[in-house]
């Protein structure tokens, strides 16, 4: 990888259509910086995006990318990474994409522990469809589809990840640019599925989970005695509903990524002009 890659190389010539002040700007900048900082370049990077405001990210970044259907970005990323272990894969989506329509995939992607990074831009609201409840919306949050609040507890993505056997669980805040970038960088460098939930405020439809709210309430785990390698510590932080955290919540030091467990290392795009060598062995099996 060329070391002279700058993060702006990951910028496309399309101007984002996110609302001015949207948290997604900061989230994306941190992703681009982290990719450049970890020695990647646009030609060896594959970004998979879901649907929603967050899903537009593939358009605003320059890399190989697929903007897929709603909620299925993780399976696409899984396929890219297993077929091309040499490619850096980053999957990005929103809270609706990841924890509602794609919740089933989230659980299994976590379990599979494929070596890729999953960034969820969590704004606790559906923005692109103009303000409906999301799976991470507070139970009393009034929206156009939940005028009296959803009366359902929000999904706790970190708990879902931990319960699914996650090897890397982190939380960042798009507005804390440096910490956000550092955390994404660690997720990229992690051997396995690097999951980062990013508080990425929606300035248009969410007047509760605002920049000010997160700024005032976030506790940086780096500044506490939290041990990221301690499962019990992680559990305690994750189940504490009274506080908002940022930092690496949990990292399994012994994480072995899927490809390694299954002996996958080849570039699967490289195939011969005819049937593979020894293919006739397959016919002989049927004697």
């Amino acid at each position, binding site marked *: 990888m060329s070391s002279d890659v700058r993060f702006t190389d990951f910028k*496309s*010539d*399309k101007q984002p259509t996110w609302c001015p002040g949207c948290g997604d700007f900061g989230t994306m900048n941190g992703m681009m910086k982290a990719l450049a900082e970890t020695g990647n370049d*646009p*030609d*060896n*990077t*594959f970004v*998979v995006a879901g649907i929603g405001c967050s899903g537009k990210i*593939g*358009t605003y970044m*320059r*890399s*190989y*990318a*697929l*903007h*897929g*259907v709603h*909620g*299925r970005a*993780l*399976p*696409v*990323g*899984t*396929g*890219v*990474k*297993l*077929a*091309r272990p*040499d*490619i850096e894969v980053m999957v990005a989506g929103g809270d609706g994409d990841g924890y509602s329509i794609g919740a*089933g*995939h989230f*659980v*299994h992607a976590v379990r599979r522990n494929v070596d890729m990074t999953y960034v969820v831009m969590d704004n606790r609201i559906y923005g692109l469809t103009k303000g409906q409840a999301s799976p991470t919306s507070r139970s009393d949050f009034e929206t156009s589809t939940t005028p009296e609040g959803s009366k359902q507890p929000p999904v706790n993505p970190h708990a879902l990840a931990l319960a699914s056997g996650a090897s890397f669980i982190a939380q960042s805040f798009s507005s804390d640019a440096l910490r956000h970038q550092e955390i994404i960088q660690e997720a990229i460098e992690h051997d396995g599925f690097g999951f980062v939930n990013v508080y990425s405020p929606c300035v248009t439809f969410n007047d509760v989970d605002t920049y000010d709210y997160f700024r005032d309430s976030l506790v940086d785990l780096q500044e506490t005695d939290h041990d990221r390698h301690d499962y019990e510590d992680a559990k305690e932080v994750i189940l504490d509903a009274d506080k908002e955290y940022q930092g690496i919540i949990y990292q399994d030091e012994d994480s072995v990524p899927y490809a390694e467990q*299954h*002996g*996958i290392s*080849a*570039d*699967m*795009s490289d*195939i*011969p*002009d*005819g*049937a*593979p060598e*020894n*293919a*006739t062995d*397959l*016919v*002989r099996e*049927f*004697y």
Partner: protein
Amino acid sequence: MVADFNWAIGGEAGDGIDSTGKIFAQALSRSGRHVFTSKDFASRIRGGYTAYKVRTSVDRVQSVVDRLDVLIALTPRTIEENLPELHEGSVIIYDGERTTMANAEIPEEMVGLDVPLKRLAEEAGGAIMRNVVALGAACEVTDFPIENLDSALEKRFKDKGQKLVDNNQEAARAGQSYVAEEFDHEFDYELETTDNDYVLLNGDEAIGMGAIAAGCRFYSGYPITPATDVMEYLTGRIERYGGHVVQAEDELSAINMALGAARGGARSMTATSGPGIDLMTETFGLVATSETPLVICNVMRSGPSTGMPTKQEQGDLNGMLYGGHGEIPRFVLAPTTIDECFWKTVEAFNLAEKYQTPVYLTADLSLAVTEQTYEPDAFDMDAVEIDRGFVVDEETIGDHQTDAEQFKPHEITDDGISPRAFPGTSGGAHMSTGLEHDELGRRTEEQEMRVEQVDKRNRKVETAEEREDWSPREFGDAEADTLVVSWGSNEGALIEALEYLEEDDIDVRVISVPYIFPRPDLTEAVEAAEETIVVECNATGQFADLVEHDVLERVERINKYTGVRFKADELARDIKATLEA
């Protein structure tokens, strides 16, 4: 008429019916006889009637018939279920010491052989081998050299140790000797052997083998009857050729993983059945719009909804042709025989990559689970050709970039085919999306570009129609007044039906169509015929509708949707009745 012999073993699901039947089929194949198998089975793990049937001849057999010569019955229901097929002189092998079989009624005109299968198996080393004792008994009844069974048993059990092989071979001999010593009866059967070498495989296996031969490296799927065999075949084999199988959490995931691998540049595939196709339809449009080469195999079963999961049907044709919102260019291939399952799979991968378009590869249940013998040359690996289509590398990519060196994955071209750059190709970074897009893959709602991209994607299909061979397969009398058209697995039964029809002086031209879209133009053939009959396993005649649409003429229809495949003699009767009506 083929001088054939028909044998079956039946009992409850969980009785080892399938593996026992397979061993006998293998023994026959190894003896140089042709074999065609079929299964009556229930999807329950245990309980319910299930049977494995083998039709065998020294000549090629490619259908089932309504006749059963020797039946190994592990339950009374097995006899009841098969009464219509049993005939005078049919031999029924059963274990009268088994509680459920103590009062089994053997019809008078048949020969009942009460063989203590379990007791003899225990003496040979374990009750579990009782079915093998029955196979030994069957060898004696059919005058079939038991060394062929030895060979099949060795193949089946050698991985588990020589002791097990020895025990099974001993169990088989116990059954053989018992019949020879205890029954003073002249059986009419004699299964002669030949020096021919055959391979024995089913359609699912042929598809799996075809995928590996075609360079498929990535398979993701979710288990579903009757497509699971494709996945199970690939698991443990594809790895030897540098590939991998992922069991996904559902079909939504399976197709998206396969899509991801294809975007990575791998030849990739998923296989499922109707209920899974329903879920995959969500992503199907994305595959086509992002111009991703993908092979989606649909092993059809009886629907709608959960339908009859272990039963035959060709009901998904319209779903594959029209499924998904919007207008989606696609190819639909439907192999008609097991060897064609192999070749059409190879073709599907080439079509997918040459035209960067999704390909439905569909087999019906009968084709998928039926085993049939072929000469090994039918799967000549040296004849496999790989065409990856329009892929650019670092040297050629410059011709497909903008002035700002942006790669154009959806470049507007005369033949509709755009360049493809695999990730890692320098200068190839690009976006692709399910949104309408410009040549760079960036979202657009600009009217002119929208029209250009839609036309370009559709033009790929037109190009394929011109460049590729979409010919059907033909059998029978090309000059006959009666034309019978079929698709999918009915071909074998139709070919054999020709012999029955010939006896009644009915000449028939058969056109068997392996391409659903694009498909051959049958106008001339239909116009030349006095009567055209379309045969298919569904209730509404979905392919007949297509033929009528294409040729603007009404056709006769023979439809079967009982969940059971056509039999040759039955089909001959149906055709005759249609002509007389």
